[in-house]
């Protein structure tokens, strides 16, 4: 590179070309790769479906467990104290 920069680069190009020319593709490569990416896609979808099912099942079980252990007398969602109803005489104006 210091003395003859073009020569070194050209020699490298030639060597890389010669090495690359000797590499041949497998005739059945496409089928193999397509089978592999389809297998992975199926597996990904299966794992996703199982994961969603597990999350739903877990949420259901937790909800049922919480409902089951709660006191039937007390409400577990709305726990505000019940308002005391006061009966007041109604003031009406006019004829009864």
């Amino acid at each position: 590179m210091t003395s003859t920069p073009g020569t070194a680069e050209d020699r490298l190009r030639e060597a890389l070309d010669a090495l690359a020319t000797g590499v041949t593709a497998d005739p059945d490569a496409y089928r193999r790769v397509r089978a592999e990416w389809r297998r992975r896609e199926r597996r990904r979808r299966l794992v996703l479906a199982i994961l969603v099912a597990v999350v739903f099942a877990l949420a259901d079980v937790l909800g049922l467990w919480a409902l089951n252990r709660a006191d039937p007398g007390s409400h577990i969602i709305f726990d505000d104290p019940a308002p005391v109803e006061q009966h007041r005489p109604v003031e009406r104006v006019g004829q009864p």
Partner: protein
Amino acid sequence: MVRSRPDTRPAAPQAPAPELGGIPRLAELAREAALVQLFDQHYTGLLRLAVLLGADDAEDIVSEAFCQLYRRWNRLRDPEAALPYLRSVVCNLVRMRVRHLQVVRKHAERPGAPTESAESAALLREDQRALVAALKGLPARQREALVLRYWLSLRETEIAAAMGISCGAVKSHTARGMAALTRVMEERR
């Protein structure tokens, strides 16, 4: 030298899984059609790139790259970005593979020579063989930069995108790699 693939490959992608609905099915077909075209045009080139970068299992690496592209097809900003993405994945996978092999060889403590196919080596002249051996002795980044620059004739920005580094770093790796190769070749004379 390069055998063309026989017509065992279908011209169009086969029908996808029956559970797919209308729009996902169309998207699936479009993705497979694009991948068929990419595979047809660039599989051999990517295979050669993996070999030149020093991969011992180039076919597995390129297959893995296509599988990753298939999975992330919807995240590509446009179909033109597919080939740079494939190049980048091949570079990364080869680098990881070479590092893994270096660790394995170090622990195995075998004085094993790097694996190189006899068929490929037989095609090279003596000086070319020495040059390729010197190239394989370079650090992975320098080797990648030289192969992408001098074999694929990519621009610096394209090399930077493929390697995931800056243009300045590409210049640096290329210059250092060429200097090292030149030094080795001059010592050999």
